[in-house]
């Protein structure tokens, strides 16, 4: 029980996250308002693209073998368990600011949240305990299985937390004419994508899908790694090769994204970034802490602009490409 933090390092704590389904690039600024027909047009475009993409079998195999280890608090995913100390208050406090006046025992009551890349449900469960209805999605079926088993024992959670083994694109593209589609479009108060974005090849699609599923005025929470020399040195060389906190080959530095780039990407998809905070992992104590520097890890909170505001902004940026149907 007193297995030391050093013991954990030896066992090899990992910071793994599943990869996302990759899709082809979408043209930015193709938003044409929120009419149903345009959404269907978008979906048909994606469906063509999705048929060419597959989940990387190597990644899936690696995660399948670890799927049962999600809930070992002293095991490979210990750093992710520890990260809850930062990300749950971050999400909770920012949502409380946006939607005011919630009861203390269940601060997130009445909110619907989508947890993209939920893995074993490490972040999904605390959000559920705080009163939100959470849907956790992940392409690795075994992880979903583990997550479902873990939450099924708890009568508090099993009615509030649901899981689905799929990707974000699949979720938004399912059965356009069925009830499923209506369920997801513009229905979530918040989307959480923690330690996911650094595994995606196509962030444009991701940002676009997020903007589809979030209600206007809803929140997007992302935690990921910055693309700097320091993040290469500490996040890959030291973490993967020296201290073995993260298994080798988990992260590809090319896929890291700086907060400025991410902000730009989100703003072009109808989001307004509210705050960016740096996070720092201490491998000796195994704790995370907030820090001023976003050089390695950072957390970002963005809010989806209401349509009128976004279109107005888009018009200001590039007035000749818009085909807007509404005007603020």
């Amino acid at each position, binding site marked *: 029980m007193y297995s030391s933090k050093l013991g954990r390092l030896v066992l090899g704590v990992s910071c793994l996250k599943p990869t996302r389904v990759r899709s082809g690039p979408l043209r930015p600024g193709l938003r044409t308002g929120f009419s149903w027909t345009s959404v269907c047009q978008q979906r048909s475009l994606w469906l063509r693209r999705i048929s060419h993409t597959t989940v990387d079998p190597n990644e899936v195999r690696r995660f399948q073998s670890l799927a049962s280890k999600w809930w070992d608090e002293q095991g490979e995913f210990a750093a992710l368990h520890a990260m809850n100390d930062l990300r749950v208050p971050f999400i909770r406090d920012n949502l409380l600011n946006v939607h005011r006046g919630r009861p*203390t*025992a269940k601060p997130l009551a009445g909110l619907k949240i989508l947890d993209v890349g939920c893995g074993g449900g490490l972040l999904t469960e605390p959000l559920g305990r705080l009163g939100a209805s959470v849907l956790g999605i992940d392409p690795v*079926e075994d992880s979903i299985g583990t997550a479902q088993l873990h939450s099924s*024992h708890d009568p508090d959670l099993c009615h509030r937390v649901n899981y689905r083994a799929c990707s974000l694109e699949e979720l938004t593209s399912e059965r356009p004419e069925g009830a499923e589609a209506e369920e997801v479009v513009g229905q979530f108060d918040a989307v959480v994508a923690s330690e996911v974005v650094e595994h995606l090849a196509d962030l444009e699609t991701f940002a676009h899908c997020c903007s589809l599923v979030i209600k206007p005025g809803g929140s997007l929470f992302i935690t990921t790694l910055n693309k700097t020399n320091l993040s290469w040195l500490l996040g890959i060389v030291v973490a993967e090769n020296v201290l073995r906190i993260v298994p080798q080959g988990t992260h590809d530095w090319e896929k890291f994204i700086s907060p400025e780039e991410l902000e730009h990407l989100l703003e072009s998809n109808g989001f307004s970034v509210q705050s960016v905070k740096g996070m720092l992992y201490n491998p000796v104590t195994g704790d995370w802490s907030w820090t001023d520097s976003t050089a390695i890890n950072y957390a970002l909170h963005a809010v989806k602009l209401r349509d009128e505001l976004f279109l107005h902004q888009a018009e200001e940026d590039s007035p000749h490409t818009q085909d807007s149907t509404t005007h603020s």
Partner: protein
Amino acid sequence: MHKLAKTTLALNGVARCLFAERWLTTPKSVCRGFVCAQQNNSDGQDDVYDVIISGGGMVGSAMACSLGMDPNLEDKRILLLEAGHKNVMDSVPDTYSTRVSSISPGSATLLASVGAWEHITNMRCKPYKKMQVWDACSDALIIFDKDNLEDEMAYIVENDVVVAALTKQLDSLSDNVQVKYRSKVVKYTWPMPHQAVESIPWVQVTLASGETLQTKLLIGADGQNSMVRRALGIPTVKWNYDQSAVVAVLRLSEPTENNVAWQRFLPTGPIAMLPLSDSESSLVWSTSHRLAEELLQLDEESFVDAVNSAFWSNENQSDLVETAGSMFRTALSALMPSAGSPRQLPPSVAAIGPKTRVMFPLGMGHASEYIRHRVALIGDAAHRVHPLAGQGVNLGFGDVACLTHILSQAAFNGKDLGAMQHLLEYETERQRHNLPMMAAIDLMKRLYSNDAAPLVLLRTFGLQATNMLPTLKEQIMAFASK
């Protein structure tokens, strides 16, 4: 525990591989929707409590009240299990009970925050402002008091009154705190540390009535012979003092302001007189087993004589020690003329109260671990001390305050209440506070159990010097008041 974790990991790994294969073949649609229906114990689903507290004494009941009143734990299901009857006290009985405790200001703050202190002051409690502790083998003494003698140092409250006040408060918290009286636990079943196939991840508590309850966190508040602690196999450092305590209620010869607590260290053990009212005081006399039994056999008059002579007689003092002591005192008063309070004499005893004298053996105990996965120990279950410093129940109330704060924070962060991470914080914080206190009490007991001249001289000088240093005394009082 680390080895246990590894072996269970190995066993579970096999089970989980089988389980993983089962999930691979399941179509996606089944992954959606509730898995609750697949549970084996579907009929017991709603019987999962968030917290079960085993033991409804002073500390266990305070824990239940404290959790019940916390706003972050408003929606949690809390259950208190007590093997005895419900302690209801509509009006305070005329006679004082023999078991009393000294409640420190820190504990009084906790009891006030759970709303029980008001009930206690309405029933019966006695604040005292000064404490005089002196040696039988020399003239050394130390007096603790607050500067202006207006603030209370601590309160003497009967144990029954504390429990009755907490019970009354629990009645008003019946929304989220349930209490089951006359429920004795016969078995605890512990969860595996990692998720195993088809196993229930909660702690299971089996009662004598055959009912089985499940909980996410079990708090063991079941006293010095804690069944929870023994069932977990937690190694405990413990030894018996060769002493028993005799308790009784004393009637003073004449009524007095009676706001001073008296304690004299005899070679056989300390004798303490704690004020209950203007004319009555409580006796706690820790002495050897043989003497304790003899005291119980004595008739009332002889017993009263024994008490008086214990407080007043000087037969244990040797000339050498007396001379050395007075020399040292003169030297100290030359250095610090203003320090040191005047010596007071304790009141004499005329009779004893109608409730029978009782004796109970004394010992020291400390659990090396206060927590396990989904379990926490509080109060005497975790630590047991000699009554000479009046700290036993105060350490327990300190545990209650700390654990409530930590669980409240954990709930606000959406954590599973039984998770080890925050329970470890509780253990570290409390062990850091409790261990020095317990070491000091044990040291005092050993130091004063001897009448060999060198030791007597040492403690005489030490006590006199401490008495002259107000800052040191303040530090001691602050440490004991938490």
